[in-house]
């Protein structure tokens, strides 16, 4: 059932407009000096030449979303008694996300293992995930901050995507990778793409050739855990960290959240919003105790979760897709690659080893 189509560059907007009749369509566009995913607007240029500043994470995992709407009302029989009614607010409609990169979309597979787990399925996430179709754009060349191939992926890895689009002369080769993807490729604007498959294949090979050698991270889960108690390691790694949340919010695979109540008058909402483990409040307990009191503790959790805890639980899969946004957009250039490699290479000082043995 392999379905391959070809779309002329000139027809891209028309095709997205067709798709927008039945779906909410998101595509990257310029906003100020940044490129972000926004509802497709035929009046605006689609910015797909380079990876977007923000991944399309919010299309499935919004920056904030309603979980429960609640209303207060007075009990007619006892006016001093306030009754509360809570109603779930579930996401509706279907969406198409065009122009994400392989790393961006692969990020959702990190969510899937957690949010779609049998024992605790998150129906909000599930509804969006199942109703969103990803047309992913294969990368032509890596940026300096790209390291998808370090984490068992690559510039044309379509894991998690429904259609893989490859730039070829004059347009795009579109390969359906799922039933959802096939269903999108029915437009009359699309030509049969069989004859251009080779061209796409060649583009994929070229992209792979441009990658530099990747270090072996298979030892990372164990090694990162080994330095857990070496606070000097984390203090040095976190020294320049500002403890903001940019890395987490730009990360396609960071999935932590907060739940808060917001009320106006007799109505309110329980919302879920992005949260990040670099924030001091994240683990701050009401008693004032904080299990991760400094940025070193918090960075340890961030790196530990991605490169040790998550792979330990989920068959060795590193919860990082190598998009490099956390490096590129970090206000102080913290490089997670460097930290992981340092952890792998870390040799405890001799005195310390002795202390451990005692």
């Amino acid at each position, binding site marked *: 059932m392999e379905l391959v189509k070809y779309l002329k560059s000139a027809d891209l907007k028309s095709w997205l407009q067709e798709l927008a009749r039945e779906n909410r369509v998101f595509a990257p566009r310029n906003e100020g000096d*940044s490129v972000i995913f926004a509802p497709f607007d035929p009046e605006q240029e689609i910015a797909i030449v380079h990876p977007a500043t923000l991944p399309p994470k919010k299309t499935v995992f919004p920056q*904030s979303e309603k979980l429960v709407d609640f209303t207060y009302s007075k009990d007619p029989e006892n006016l001093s008694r306030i009754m509360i009614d809570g109603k779930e607010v579930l996401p509706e409609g279907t969406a198409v996300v065009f122009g994400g990169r392989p790393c961006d979309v692969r990020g959702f597979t990190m969510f899937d293992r957690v949010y779609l787990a049998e024992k605790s399925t998150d129906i909000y996430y599930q509804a969006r995930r199942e109703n969103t179709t990803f047309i992913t754009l294969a990368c032509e060349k890596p940026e300096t901050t790209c390291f998808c191939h370090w984490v068992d992926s690559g510039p044309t890895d379509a894991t998690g995507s429904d259609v893989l689009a490859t730039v070829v002369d004059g347009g795009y080769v579109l390969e359906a990778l799922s039933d959802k993807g096939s269903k999108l490729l029915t437009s009359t604007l699309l030509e049969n793409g069989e004859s251009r498959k080779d061209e796409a294949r060649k583009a994929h090979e070229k992209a792979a050739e441009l990658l530099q050698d990747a270090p072996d991270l298979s030892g990372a889960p164990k090694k990162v855990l080994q330095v857990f108690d070496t606070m000097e390691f984390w203090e040095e790694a976190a*020294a*320049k960290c500002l403890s903001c949340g940019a890395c987490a919010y730009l990360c396609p695979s960071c999935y932590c959240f907060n739940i808060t109540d917001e009320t106006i008058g007799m109505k309110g909402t329980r919302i879920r919003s992005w949260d990040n483990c670099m924030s*001091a409040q994240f683990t701050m307990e009401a008693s004032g105790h904080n299990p991760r009191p400094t940025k070193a503790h918090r960075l340890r959790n961030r790196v530990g979760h991605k490169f040790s805890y998550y792979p330990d639980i989920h068959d060795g899969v590193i919860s990082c897709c190598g998009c490099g946004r956390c490096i590129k957009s970090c206000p102080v250039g913290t490089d997670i690659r460097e930290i992981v490699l340092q952890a792998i290479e870390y040799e405890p000082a001799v005195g310390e080893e002795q202390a451990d043995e005692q």
Partner: protein
Amino acid sequence: MKFQEELKDSIRKALPDLDVVLGWCGSFDPLHATPHFIRREEDIDKLEISPLSVHNLATYLPGLRGKKVGIVVKGCDSRSVVELLQENLINREDITIFGFPCTGVVDQAKIKKALGHAGNVRTCDISDSAIVIQTEDKAHSLTLTQMLADKCRTCRYPDAIISDYFVGDKIGEPAPLETDYAALEAFESLSVPERFGYWLKELDRCIRCYACRSACPLCVCRDHCAAESRDPHWLSQENNVRDKVMFQVIHAYHMAGRCTECGECQRACPVDIPVLMLKQKMNREIRDIFQYEAGVDPEATPPLLSFNMEEENITEKEW
């Protein structure tokens, strides 16, 4: 930089008495620098001072209180140090300041724009007048003055205001390349709905990472910020532009009479939101009313912590 070796010598001399010296070194690509924490002798060699030394390292000082810290400062950074001293947020005797004559730092956003894309920089050579950047397919020669951060184009304090070591020759009072607040004034000439709409549009893409706050050397509440407080409940966690604008107003107001316009808030923003303008507006009004400038005199009393019975430049409304 000519004085870089001299600076390294000064640091080498001072390091034995210090826990750490803050400087800059190379980063993930040749176009970027990153803060460098010099703890050991061998770290000194990595120090690099250049127009890429954009970060205001004073941001780290309050967090290092209690330690003996050396810090390399540009003129603008030194104003943040002065302000922190003025507010008793750091102890002068714990800080060793290394100054140098700063000829300006780049604005990465301008370079990105000039290159079209800055993701594949191979080399970057900076001379007194030009930045030559080699990307994977092309060499770009950019005029340094055009790539300078706006704050450098209007700079009046190129030499550190206070320092314990100063390397190189002081520049003195430079001729600014631009007049202060020209962009702000252009913005103010827009219509009311245009101004209102501008912020809604620009801040809509804010992801509330609060890098603007975390990078700010004078946002010293750190883990107790109004942004996340539930009591008082200034902001909701909803993704709405109202709360994003409100946070920027809170930031600007909390900086009133304190902000030195180092521009870290805007530089840190991962989605390039021009948030510095709000602080500039606040500063210009404070300058006009109180003839006050933050971060130039550790002994000065900030305008909002004092008053006059009769305010010379405040005209109250007649009813």
